[in-house]
């Protein structure tokens, strides 16, 4: 087996079932180079999942496994699993051009040893498709013990909406999945791996993850922020991401707000020497001086700061950096500017300098440092409509203000503040006055009243909001003892002489991808680049800067700093459609207990399947997991292409009268195969509804075949025989069982088949000629089968069974039809047509394209193998005609 793909093959075989494997092996033996493409993670097709083959009752796995191994080991057969054929187009030279997408498995197959340790730690359970949904597998899984190749794959559909929404790069789906499993310490670990400041974010983040949560689309979203807060505040911070090695390079971070702290955190984890310079007396920037203490208790901030200091980050407070030259002289090779955006905007109206007029940040700062202005019983106005305005209003209430009014120039729906913040402010008693703008602050010694003008909303501006137009002719006075101006901030002009480029409003210009400024070795991020924005965004900017500073200093990509989703790696947000809202009221309050957190997390829908918790990444002893893997397009030339895509089983959930969609004890024949197979999930024949050993079993033939109403009037050829086989195997597994087969007519047409039927009848299998119309469930899970008695006295009769098996028909597999641009003929049932099945078996209407096995119509296994042999002979002859000789 060659691991490297070639650009041309004699034959591309599509489908790794028994027919595809057989043809590939035969062609390989003849000396032709073959590529076998399989869409699942393992070859083996349906046969490897079966119990026994009829009529010999040989073990299906024992026949299939050596073939699978032979395919893997054949020197002229290359195996490409987890790949789909996108198109097959004829070329002028008579060959075919095949386009294949190799889907990312997120596991490096050259490293994976198939040990299965990843499966043990995976946090997401999915129905196991190889066990027909009877049991669960994990999001990371090895298909089955006999899988070839025996390598793990991760089912991952982009990123979950919550994880894609987080500006800080947290993976809410990941920590929720860990909490759901009760692994709270690991949840905290997962949060700390992706971002610092979990305590801060748990309190102050605006939680865009919750806005995007699929549960929230119809009902209550998962309380993602509250869950983060729960683990951040209730678990010890013992685990640190200490660097493996020290890198002797120094980085200066100017500013200790969320962005600077985040950058320092990630760089220190990578082993760099980081010093944060803070001009205030204590670190934290806006977190300490801007966010009110009632919203973010300082012990929580201090605990988060400890995480960062523990990594060796040095925080120098009370030191303002005025020139970059001094930093360079001290040996810093890179600088991250995270100086924030703290300069208040002013209104430029009379009276702004009156006592009693406060700027928002200085007001909050005085409150946060324990020296709030005397407001008790006073009437306070707050000008502005953002989150800071609301923080000021609510803080003023906490300072004892008698009445607090937020004055905003537009309407409530235009407020930049989050609507839940407005709700909370209203609940606390904050009043709102909309469409008013101050013209003048009046008072003799100090502020006494505000002259307000009415505001009319004009045309929409560039932000899409209505432009406010002040009408100075319509004014009123508003009595106020104090007014707080929360009308925005802008970055201070820093390092004006260092040659930086600025936007007109004072923000630093940076490369949006790397956050590098135009000055060599200097990066900048957070509010000083974006203007005032959210904490989570600042944390994200610090993380991004750390990534690029590390790369700048070492020339290496820091792969463990995960910038997704922002870097545009093609990870799309996964979508799950909820049919109906689910009534649910959360019990997850202010002081939850772990059980409540686990319950709240249990509602997660696993939108992207893989939760990105990265437990497998940390567990895999071979370091094989790579969540950045991308789909790979492969284009190659082939002399011939064989379609061996097999068939699809009829899905009886579309037939409500069969009860399959509702009654757990109505199963399909393929599920019964799994229950009987040596690799069976329960290691016994049990009915799924209650785990009882069924004593009386009914098998309903022609479920979804020979049925005009089901859209498939054709016979599936295999159901009679596999049902007789199952009946015999059931009697072998449960000797006291009664088995009844309901049939229209029993088609035992091949060599040894009639004897097989007689053998089943001789074992005591009841054969009832009757068409089943409906199946009902009784209270104890038993089933009543209504059938037309065709041979006895006639009429509709009833029979009771403990388990009913639907012998589902074989339908055409439509997957490949769209891949062939040339006119590829199908038969009336949708199978690939052999244009001359008698004279030229396996030859389709497109030159070079062949079909084998059940892709051309339902066939049993011996017929598939025969057909595959014919296909190999046809293809060999065709390849010779093209000039390919083989060996």
């Amino acid at each position, binding site marked *: 087996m060659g691991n490297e793909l070639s650009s041309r093959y004699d034959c591309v075989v599509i489908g790794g079932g028994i027919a595809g494997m057989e043809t590939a092996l035969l062609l390989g033996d003849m000396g032709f180079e073959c590529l076998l493409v399989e869409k699942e993670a393992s070859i083996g097709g349906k046969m490897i999942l079966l119990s026994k083959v009829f009529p010999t009752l040989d073990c299906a*796995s*024992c026949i299939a*496994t*050596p073939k699978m*191994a032979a395919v893997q*080991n054949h020197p002229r057969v290359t195996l490409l699993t987890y790949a789909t054929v996108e198109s097959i187009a004829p070329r002028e030279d008579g060959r075919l051009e095949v386009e294949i997408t190799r889907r990312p498995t997120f596991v490096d197959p050259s490293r994976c040893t198939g040990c299965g340790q990843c499966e043990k730690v995976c946090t997401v359970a999915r129905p196991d498709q190889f066990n027909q949904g009877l049991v669960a597998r994990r999001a990371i899984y090895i298909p089955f*013990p*006999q899988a070839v190749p025996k390598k793990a794959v991760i089912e991952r559909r982009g990123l979950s909406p919550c994880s894609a929404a987080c500006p800080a790069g947290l993976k809410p789906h990941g920590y929720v999945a860990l909490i759901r499993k009760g692994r709270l310490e690991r949840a905290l670990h997962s949060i700390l791996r992706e971002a610092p400041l979990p305590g801060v974010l748990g309190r102050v983040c605006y939680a865009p993850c919750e806005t995007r949560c699929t549960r929230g689309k119809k009902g209550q979203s998962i309380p993602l922020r509250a869950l983060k807060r729960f683990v951040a505040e209730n678990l010890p911070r013992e685990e640190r991401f200490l660097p493996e090695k020290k890198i002797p390079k120094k980085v200066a971070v100017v500013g200790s707000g969320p962005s600077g702290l985040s950058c320092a955190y990630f760089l220190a984890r990578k082993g760099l020497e980081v010093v944060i310079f803070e001009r205030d007396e204590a670190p934290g920037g806006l977190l300490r001086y801007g966010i009110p203490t009632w919203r973010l208790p300082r012990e929580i901030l201090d605990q988060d700061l400890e995480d960062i200091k523990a990594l060796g980050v040095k925080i120098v407070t009370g030191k303002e950096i005025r020139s970059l030259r001094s930093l360079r002289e001290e040996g810093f090779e890179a600088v991250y500017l995270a100086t924030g955006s703290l300069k208040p905007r002013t209104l430029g109206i009379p009276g702004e300098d009156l006592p009693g007029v406060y700027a928002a940040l200085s007001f909050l700062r005085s409150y946060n440092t324990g020296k709030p202005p005397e407001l008790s019983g006073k009437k306070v106005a707050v000008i502005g409509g953002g989150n800071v305005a609301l923080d000021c209003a609510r803080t003023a209430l906490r300072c004892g203000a008698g009445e607090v009014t937020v004055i905003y120039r537009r309407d409530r729906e235009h407020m930049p503040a989050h609507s839940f913040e407005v709700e909370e402010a209203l609940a606390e008693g904050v009043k709102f006055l909309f469409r008013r703008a101050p013209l003048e602050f009046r008072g003799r010694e100090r502020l006494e009243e505000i002259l307000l003008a009415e505001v009319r909303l004009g045309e929409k501006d560039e932000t899409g909001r209505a432009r406010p137009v002040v009408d100075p002719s319509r004014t009123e006075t508003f009595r106020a003892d104090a007014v707080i101006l929360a009308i925005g901030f802008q970055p201070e002009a820093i390092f004006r002489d260092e040659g930086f480029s600025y936007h007109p409003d004072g923000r630093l210009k940076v490369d949006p991808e790397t956050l590098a400024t135009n000055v060599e070795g200097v990066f900048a991020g957070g509010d000083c680049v974006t203007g005032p924005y959210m904490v989570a965004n600042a944390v994200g900017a610090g993380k991004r800067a750390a990534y690029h500073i590390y790369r700048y200093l070492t020339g290496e990509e820091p792969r463990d700093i995960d910038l997704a989703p922002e870097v545009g790696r093609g990870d799309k947000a996964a979508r799950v459609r909820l049919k109906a809202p689910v009534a649910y009221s959360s019990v997850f309050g202010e002081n939850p207990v772990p059980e409540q957190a686990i319950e709240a997390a249990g509602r997660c829908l696993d939108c992207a399947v893989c939760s990105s918790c990265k437990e497998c990444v940390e567990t895999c002893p071979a370091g094989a997991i790579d969540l950045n893997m991308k789909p790979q397009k492969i284009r190659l030339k082939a002399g011939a292409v064989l379609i061996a895509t097999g068939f699809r089983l009829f899905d009886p959930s579309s037939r409500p009268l069969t009860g399959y969609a509702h009654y757990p004890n109505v199963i399909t024949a393929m599920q019964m195969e799994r229950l009987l197979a*040596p690799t069976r999930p329960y*290691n016994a024949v049990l009915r799924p509804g209650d785990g009882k050993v069924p004593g009386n079993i009914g098998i309903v033939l022609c479920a979804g075949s020979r049925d005009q109403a089901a859209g498939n009037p054709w016979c599936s050829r295999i159901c009679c025989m596999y049902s007789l086989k199952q009946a015999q195997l059931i009697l072998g597994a449960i000797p006291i069982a009664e088995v009844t087969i309901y049939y229209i007519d029993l088609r035992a047409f091949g060599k040894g088949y009639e004897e097989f039927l007689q053998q089943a009848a001789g074992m005591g299998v009841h054969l009832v000629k009757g068409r089943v119309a409906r199946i009902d469930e009784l209270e104890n899970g038993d089933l009543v089968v209504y059938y037309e008695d065709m041979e006895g006295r006639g009429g509709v009769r009833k029979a009771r069974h403990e388990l009913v098996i639907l012998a589902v028909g074989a339908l055409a597999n439509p997957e490949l039809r769209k891949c062939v641009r040339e006119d590829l003929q199908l038969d009336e049932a949708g199978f690939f047509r052999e244009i001359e099945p008698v004279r030229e078996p396996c030859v389709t209407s497109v030159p070079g394209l062949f079909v084998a096995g059940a892709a051309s119509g339902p066939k049993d296994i011996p017929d598939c193998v025969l057909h595959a042999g014919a296909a190999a002979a046809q293809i060999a002859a065709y390849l010779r005609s093209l000039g390919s000789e083989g060996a």
Partner: protein
Amino acid sequence: MSVKILVFSTQNISDPGVDLAGSSHLPYSPGVVVIPVPCSSGIDPRWIIYALEKGFDGVFIAADGTDCPYLEDCTTRTGQVVARAQEMAREKGLDPRRIRMAAICSVCAEAFVNHMRNFEKALQELEHGK
């Protein structure tokens, strides 16, 4: 105390069978240690003797039988490996009954467990017979 058995399994055929025994939660002695090899006919008899000398009570070769994807005469060849190992054991004064071989297919989980139980019993009897 449970006996120590070293099992040589084959990557493609018998190892999935042994793996299935584990994933089906079939109980067998914790003293069984499995080393997968590409093909049982490639086992060197000296490895078997080395294992016995290093303290294993028995060595079991879970061969492919006729399922071997490489060689049609794999069973004969593996049989020769075992015969040679038993001969070497005799020369070193070790009981050749400590070396066994059986075909284990990819789904022979129960067969494997039965082999292990029987071999364990036989090895215990050998110990007591001393």
